[in-house]
């Protein structure tokens, strides 16, 4: 068969629209996921028995179930259980926040605990409260160690948005699916979709590389 470039040209506006939603879900999801992950990770590492157990339960619940099940739960089960009605976009963003949050929590916990305990002691020994030790001393060292695993998680989450096809969010994969259903040009459409994903993950990787280079690893 012939690779028909005109198919791609025609599909471009719709695909770009889908890609825009993918980026939006990813950005909101990761911003929220970072916030949730920092809180849950610090609870795991430094919270008392209760806070740590709470965070542990959340992390294990999320890591132990597929993200498709999580988003289906948010979209279809929550309205039944709690009378909370959400639109597909909100469900998609929430799913990324909750899902990435759990993995990021483990990254945060691991990198904070990997910092040599002498630094914490040096901070405490001069009379700092624990929150200042975490914020000014351990945090900046831990943060540098987080960048590579965080980058990994960002890419995973970006690609996970394609699974939200199951609740009908018009993100990139869904757009590709719809166009293909109309014109049956599988090769052109899925090639274009794949390239758009590569462009997005490539940009992410580039940003992370630059951030990593700018910071001296400690």
């Amino acid at each position, binding site marked *: 068969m012939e690779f028909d470039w005109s198919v791609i040209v025609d599909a471009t506006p719709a695909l770009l629209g889908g890609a825009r939603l993918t980026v939006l879900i990813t950005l909101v999801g990761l911003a929220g996921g970072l916030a949730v992950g920092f809180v849950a990770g610090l609870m795991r590492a430094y919270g008392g028995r209760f806070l740590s157990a709470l965070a542990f339960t959340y992390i294990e619940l999320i890591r132990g179930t597929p993200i498709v099940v999580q988003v289906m739960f948010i979209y279809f089960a929550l309205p039944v259980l709690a009378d909370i009605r959400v639109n597909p976009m909100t469900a998609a963003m929430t799913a990324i926040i909750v899902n990435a949050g759990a993995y990021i929590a483990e990254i945060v916990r691991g990198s904070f605990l990997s910092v*040599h305990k*002498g*630094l914490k002691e*040096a901070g405490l*020994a001069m*009379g*700092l409260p624990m929150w200042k030790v975490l914020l000014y*001393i351990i945090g900046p060292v831990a943060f540098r160690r987080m960048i590579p695993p965080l980058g990994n998680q960002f890419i995973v989450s970006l690609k996970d948005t394609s699974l939200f096809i199951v609740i009908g969010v018009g993100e990139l994969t869904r757009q590709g699916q719809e166009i293909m259903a109309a014109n049956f040009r599988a090769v052109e459409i899925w090639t274009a979709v794949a390239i758009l994903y590569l462009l997005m993950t490539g940009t992410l990787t580039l940003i992370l590389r630059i951030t990593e280079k700018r910071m001296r690893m*400690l």
Partner: protein
Amino acid sequence: MSLVKLSKVTKTFGTVVVLQEVDLSIEAGEVVVLVGPSGSGKSTLLRCINALEPINGGDLIVDNISVRAGRSQIRAIRQEAGMVFQQFNLFPQMTALQNVAFGPRHVRGAGKAEALAQAQALLAKVGLAERGHHYPSELSGGQQQRVAIARALAVKPKLMLFDEPTSALDPELRHEVLQVMKSLAEEGMTMIVVTHEMAFAREVGTRLIFMEDGKISVDGDPASLLSNPDNQRLREFLQHVH
């Protein structure tokens, strides 16, 4: 009134008793050299004075505050008892100058300009006026330890605790650190120093304490104890470190 007063201080880790009803009073201006075999509880004693380790029995008063008081009291104790570690523990993301300025800024509430000026003066005092912009990884061990001393001094403590400050250093770098400690003692700083440097103990120390199995077994004048150790175990210990 003693600056540091331990009354029957007991410290345990699980079932292991590390400090056994230790009694000790230290007055302002004393330079106490603490020696003893590995595992005798020297580090633990220092860490209890700084409240890094909670005590299990007895009482420990530093500058009229008990380590058994609440959190803010404990922070007050720590500000008065500067600590210098064997492994330096400088903050790696900060330059030497930032390390030293950190305490005044975040513990004593000094302004930025004031903290940096103080820090620069302290670096000059430990002979590192030109090294302020270097990161810890760019300094030798001896230089790092001198920055660590300056960092502890910056908080303006009444008492300095040193836990084997020269043990991680090559012999040729020890001298510069000991020299800084000596001039600190000459200025009248109260110090408790865990060390194997017997020359330092003899020259600078005003008091020598020998610990064994979580107890103080010898406590006296360094010069006379070192030239004529009448305790059998201390004599054996000194033969090992020489």
